[in-house]
């Protein structure tokens, strides 16, 4: 008998005795959740923090959440203006090299920057990416409810691009703004069903820690700055 078989046998043996469902002491003795429970008749959207249905409401909520998280949000009119935001950062922060991946939003933007580039959607050296001043990526969605950016290894240039350089810049289109977390997970399933990337992350603000006297410090191990440029 392998350990797998032994553990599964112990689990099956243990589960021959039924346990009461929390908050339903009288439903004891059933092997499946009875109909009429919350999990069968509802979606978490009804309990999670409220999100409006109009685009403007969601945009306002996203803007507020991103500000609370100490990230930057630039909602601009066009791709040209988005490039303008990037060149401003390049000049203000003195970028010498950026990391990025190939994509319809990143390609024109990075070309306009005119800087040496480390591409992470093909084989690359970690030390090369580590020496970049910023990582510029696309994303799968922006989530209004939490001010989060949803990325995957496929949409955002692998696992390291969005965490290793000190400044992560996300380029997104306004259609990518979704309302709440259940919508974000539904989108993931629709987009990647059957073939998920090996890495998915919800990024909510720049890297932070409160491990020293519960005092907030940004840039613990990941980026100190997170900027979202959307048009």
């Amino acid at each position, binding site marked *: 008998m392998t350990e797998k078989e032994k553990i599964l046998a112990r689990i099956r043996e243990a589960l021959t005795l039924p*346990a009461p*469902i*929390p908050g339903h002491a009288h439903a004891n003795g059933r092997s499946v959740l009875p109909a009429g429970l919350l999990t069968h008749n509802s979606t978490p959207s009804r309990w999670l*923090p409220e999100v409006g249905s109009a685009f403007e409401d969601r945009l306002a909520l996203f803007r507020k959440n991103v500000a609370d998280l100490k990230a930057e949000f630039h909602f601009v009119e066009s791709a040209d203006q988005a490039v303008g935001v990037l060149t401003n950062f390049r000049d203000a922060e003195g970028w010498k090299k950026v990391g990025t991946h190939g994509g319809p939003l990143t390609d024109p933007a990075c070309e306009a920057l005119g800087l040496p580039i480390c591409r992470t959607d093909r084989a690359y050296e970690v030390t090369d990416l580590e020496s970049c001043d910023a990582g510029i990526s696309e994303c799968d969605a922006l989530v209004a409810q939490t001010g989060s950016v949803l990325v995957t290894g496929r949409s955002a240039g692998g*696992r390291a691009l969005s965490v290793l350089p000190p400044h992560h810049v996300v380029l997104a289109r306004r259609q990518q703004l979704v309302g709440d*977390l259940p919508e974000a997970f539904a989108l993931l399933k629709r987009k990647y069903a059957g073939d998920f990337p090996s890495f998915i992350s919800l990024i*909510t603000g720049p*890297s932070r820690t409160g491990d020293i006297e*519960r005092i907030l410090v940004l840039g613990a191990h*990941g980026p100190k700055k997170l900027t979202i440029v959307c048009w």
Partner: protein
Amino acid sequence: MTSFVEQFKRRAVQLTRDLRHRHLIQTALRKYEAVRDKTRGSFQDWQSARQAAAETKWEAVNHLDKYLVEFVGKLEARGTKVHWASTGGQARDIIFGIIRQKNARSIIKSKAMTSEEIHLNDALEEAGFEVVESDLGEFIVQLRKEAPYHIVFPAMHLSRGDISAVFARELGSAPTDNPEELTMIARRVLRNKYITADIGLTGANFAIAETGMISITENEGNARLTAALPKVVISLLGIEKILPRLEDLALFLPMLATSGTGQPLTCYNSLYGGPRQPGESDGPEEYHVVLLDNRRTELLADPEQRDALHCIRCGACLNVCPIFRNVGGHTYGTTYSGPIGSVITPHLRGLQDWKHLSYASSLCGACTETCPVKINLHHHLLQNRRNAARQKPSAIEHFAFKLFAFVINRPGCYAFVRGVARFAQKFHPLLKGKRLDPAYGWTRTRELPPIAEETFKEHWRKRKDARD
């Protein structure tokens, strides 16, 4: 008395009197409470969210065999090597096996309470490997050669001065009392470790059966780097971490964050579904998942307390517990402290050795009320007391209750004992709090409530007489 009880009592006495410790803990937890309440308030219906989370975890834990098989099948289909360990020793052997096979020297770790549970760091260091904790709080307690103080805030008991001192001693950095500078010292030291480490080791917050993914929640980005840069990555997790569906995270991620730190959502919530896939440019070449039982199946076999396996390790019950707030995390001497630790440790490490933790509770129920998955914590403490007494009855307790029953069942006898006690208590102040005091165990640190000069019965009779 076993040494575990003595150790608990000795440390509890020391720490309840330590005002500096109390100040650090109270300050940190006041901040936590304020943000937690604000974030909970932003939910449309926190109580329904708790109920749904409890039902979802019930579903997962009560069909654990089915969901584990699904989870493992999905992971293996995409090239992950899954290992099963019945004991901590087996889990350590599996991890050592992978390390030796890869000829690895250095290991970078992100936070994993399961690794504390199996004492992995000690074993690795003893065998001559370099192992570095990358979570800031864990890094600090590792440098101090201490166990984490709290499952979410490992260095909560330390001031910035303490941290500066250990950095100066162990890393040779210049002393500073600026938390940002201290964080940057750790960042610089650890950056290089991620890049050079042979193996990355992580824990897990959830295991998604439907898609075969590990979910890791963190604020710093250290777990993301740990799972991105080394060539080989290992995740060590308890078998109870299962959630049935991917979309369950839409509820569990915000609830974990709200209960754990008071944040609406933790900074990075990442899902890992395997090693680098064809067409992917980075990530490990090999991904191993080690599933740990370590007597969790014994807890599973107790339907009364099975819901303790619903725990998502948010630490909320520690934060509200009046005992934890006074005696601190290290006093417990366990991997998991506070109410959840007091409930599960007797199951994981032996009822008789750890039954004293069932009494480290005021039974106020604050833990049960705050638990995001509705674990009936304070009732489980009572059940552990009952089970311990049933398994090994105490002769003294048995005699005391016999005596009590004898007295209370005989009104004349009860009146006599009451009269003697009422007379004797006049002289109690002479002895109170001294070793000769028969109630010394209590009066050493507490007031003994006096016996009333008049019982209710006597009062009632007098009142009736006066009316007649």
